[in-house]
């Protein structure tokens, strides 16, 4: 059956393995579509999608927008910076106002954890979570796994280390759920101050030595240090962070295998990754971006399928 078990994409936590496989198989077809001379299909001609971004985003917003356009949906964009939110309007009021313009799907990024779940309970539209606080970022985790599958054939049995700021990262949590569900082994690596206290209860291990972690893994997913979310100092200096947890060519070459390097972007070049690593053959960072469009097309297509036409 080609149906998702969920009616919104709020987080990877709510998905099962069949859902992930269905999304990946659909994304395979969309990846072929976006490499055609005419990169568009008419499936969602009568669907309207609102992109509500209550937090800054370049890549995710563009990727969603492009995915929606490739499916021929009508779209409206909304950024908190230029909106009535600044005038004190509540989230439900904002969403309801947009819904009365007959919107079928809402793609939302919000600084507060659980904003998507809250909206799904109160509003009659499909919700796609494009990142809620430090909680989940499901489409990013899906495209990360999809890229691993594309590069290494399968996610099952692969060893993935997530390096960096786990505490403030929604990408990390969604990735842990997605990778565990598909049978990969996950290790975390980063300053102890940026590793949440009970994170190992999710079935992942922790390694504080970057070299050991890299020697163990097949894939290193390197996260950005999120200075904007840090209200206090979590490590003494950027220089020290780079020395202990930054990946450079020298370190990579001294390891006896070809590790796949991933990064959800935007990269702080010279902090978590040096430029020669980010641009190396081992890096699949730009493939991740291309796959992002195909994955988001698949997610939106499969959710739109559930909206019945009278």
């Amino acid at each position, binding site marked *: *059956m*080609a*149906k998702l078990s969920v009616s919104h994409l709020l987080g990877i936590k709510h998905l099962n393995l069949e859902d992930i496989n269905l999304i990946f*198989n*659909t994304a*395979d*077809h969309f990846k*072929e*579509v976006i490499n*055609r*001379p*005419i*990169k*568009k*299909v*008419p*499936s969602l001609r009568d669907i309207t999608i609102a992109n509500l971004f209550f937090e800054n985003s370049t890549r995710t917003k563009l990727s969603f927008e492009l995915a929606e356009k490739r499916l021929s949906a009508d779209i409206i964009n909304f950024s908190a910076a230029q909106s009535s939110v600044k005038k004190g309007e509540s989230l439900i009021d904002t969403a309801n106002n947009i819904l009365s313009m007959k919107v079928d799907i809402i793609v939302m990024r919000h600084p507060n954890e659980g904003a998507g779940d809250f909206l799904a309970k109160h509003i009659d539209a499909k919700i796609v979570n494009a990142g809620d606080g430090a909680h989940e970022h499901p489409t990013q985790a899906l495209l990360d796994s999809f890229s691993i599958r594309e590069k290494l054939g399968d996610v099952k049995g692969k060893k993935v280390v997530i390096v960096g700021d786990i505490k403030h990262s929604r990408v990390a949590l969604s990735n842990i759920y997605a990778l565990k569900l598909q049978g990969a082994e996950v290790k975390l690596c980063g300053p102890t101050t940026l590793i949440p206290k009970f994170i190992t209860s999710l079935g992942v291990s922790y390694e504080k030595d970057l070299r050991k972690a890299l020697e163990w893994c097949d894939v290193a997913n390197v996260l950005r240090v999120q200075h904007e979310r840090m209200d206090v100092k979590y490590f003494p200096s950027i220089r020290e962070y780079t020395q202990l947890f930054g990946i450079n060519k020298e370190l990579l070459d001294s390891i006896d295998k070809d590790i796949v390097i991933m990064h959800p972007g935007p990269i702080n070049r010279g902090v978590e990754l040096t430029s020669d690593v980010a641009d190396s053959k081992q890096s699949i960072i730009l493939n991740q971006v291309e796959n992002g469009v195909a994955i988001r097309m698949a997610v939106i*297509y499969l959710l*739109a*399928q559930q*909206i*019945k*036409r009278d």
Partner: protein
Amino acid sequence: MAKKTLLNEKEIYIILNRLACQLIENHQDFSNTILIGIQPRGVYLADRLVQVLTEEYQVKDIKLGKLDITFYRDDFRRREDPLSASSTDINFIVDNKNVVFIDDVLFSGRSIRAALTAIQAFGRPKNIELLVLIDRRFSRHLPIQPDYKGRQVDVIKDEQVKVEWKENEPRDKVCIVSPDV
């Protein structure tokens, strides 16, 4: 469920040869022609026709593609059980080429309508023809007719025409399946 054989293995063999000859008559050496099997079931017929053309009539270098129409269907969001997509495999531009769509059964004509839209993503063909193994008469929803047909049949709406290929069934066969009364 009652099952009645419409065409047996030998009849299908004869029809495939006739269709191959008709294609040669109109397309000669196929240098400017592209055959497109419509996913999922038209692909078997397309493969078989190419096999007949190459082995029995020594036609060389036939360009064959597969086209999936799932994302172009007009019943998206109207079906109870959504269809899964199949792969599309067209590694050439169809600009100014003679395209022949190949499908097993022509019923409402809606799949072909979707295929006509889908093929535009690969260029502007010079012309498009349609080849089907079975043409169900009096069942069309759209003004679409085949240029080459294996057999024309009249069956009532509740009956289903099923084409079986020896690739995944015991032998080649076309049958009419009617529901129990």
